[in-house]
């Protein structure tokens, strides 16, 4: 088994473990947030092994950013019980694990970006770079990018309005 395949299986197993943890143990907001971070980071690792560097970085940023926002909002708004945040909690260990994977993933992404990138072996090795991705997005797909930008703006405004409104 090549190193590339081993890394793919490692991150795949991590993603499945995070999704299973969410399914079985996702009772508290803290555990859900940590499972979300772990799942997103594992998917970013999988994408990195597939040669989708830009997607991996985007997924890494999205999962960590959204996961931290989820964690903060669950602590501040949902009034999470303090016992779930104490030192002896197993969730604390999971949080450290997620943080370690995040740092390792960032180092791996940086090394992959500074080096020659992931070389796919085999009869056909197709790893589009950022320039190719930009060509695809801002060539024929430019109207779609415009619509999605508009969607993000609407989602941002809607999110602010929904979060500020006093219901009832």
């Amino acid at each position, binding site marked *: 088994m090549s190193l590339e395949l081993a890394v793919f299986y490692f991150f795949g197993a991590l993603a499945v473990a995070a999704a299973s943890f969410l*399914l079985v143990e996702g009772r508290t907001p803290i555990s859900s947030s940590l499972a979300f971070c772990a799942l997103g980071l594992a998917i970013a690792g999988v994408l990195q092994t597939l040669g989708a560097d830009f997607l991996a970085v985007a997924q890494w940023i999205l999962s960590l950013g959204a996961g931290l926002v989820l964690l903060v909002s*669950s602590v501040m708004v949902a009034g999470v019980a303090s016992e779930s945040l104490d030192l002896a909690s197993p969730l604390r260990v999971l949080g450290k694990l997620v943080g370690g994977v995040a740092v390792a993933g960032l180092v791996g992404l940086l090394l992959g970006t500074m080096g020659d990138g992931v070389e796919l072996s085999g009869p056909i090795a197709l790893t589009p770079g950022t320039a*190719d991705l930009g060509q695809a997005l801002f060539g024929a797909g430019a109207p779609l990018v415009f619509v999605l930008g508009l*969607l993000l703006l609407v989602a*941002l405004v809607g999110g602010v309005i929904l979060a500020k409104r006093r219901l009832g």
Partner: protein
Amino acid sequence: MIPHEHVVGLALLLFALAILTVLLRRGLLALLVGVQGIFVSGALAVVGFAQGHAAMGVEPIMGVEPLARVSEAHGFALLVLVVAAAEFSVGLAMAVAFMRKRGSVNVESASVLRW
């Protein structure tokens, strides 16, 4: 080279787990994360299918070169991730509003739209 069947299989497994999370969990944030898992597994499946499609040959299909096909698939997966982020922002705002009103993260207490 990573077999694209393994990538699609992993995406399928993650999709099934996310669907089960949405169906079985009653925590609001677990539901939100489950929906995110559905989106992300879909994006992963797109990348996996692009790998498999590129492995079919180096000849252009319908005038599109293999590298351009993979690039377009990656662009499409990125768009899926963007849609997931938009959905997440609105979903989290709704979750925050729900938690402030009900003081709970259990969706069983959300019964306004039921008949």
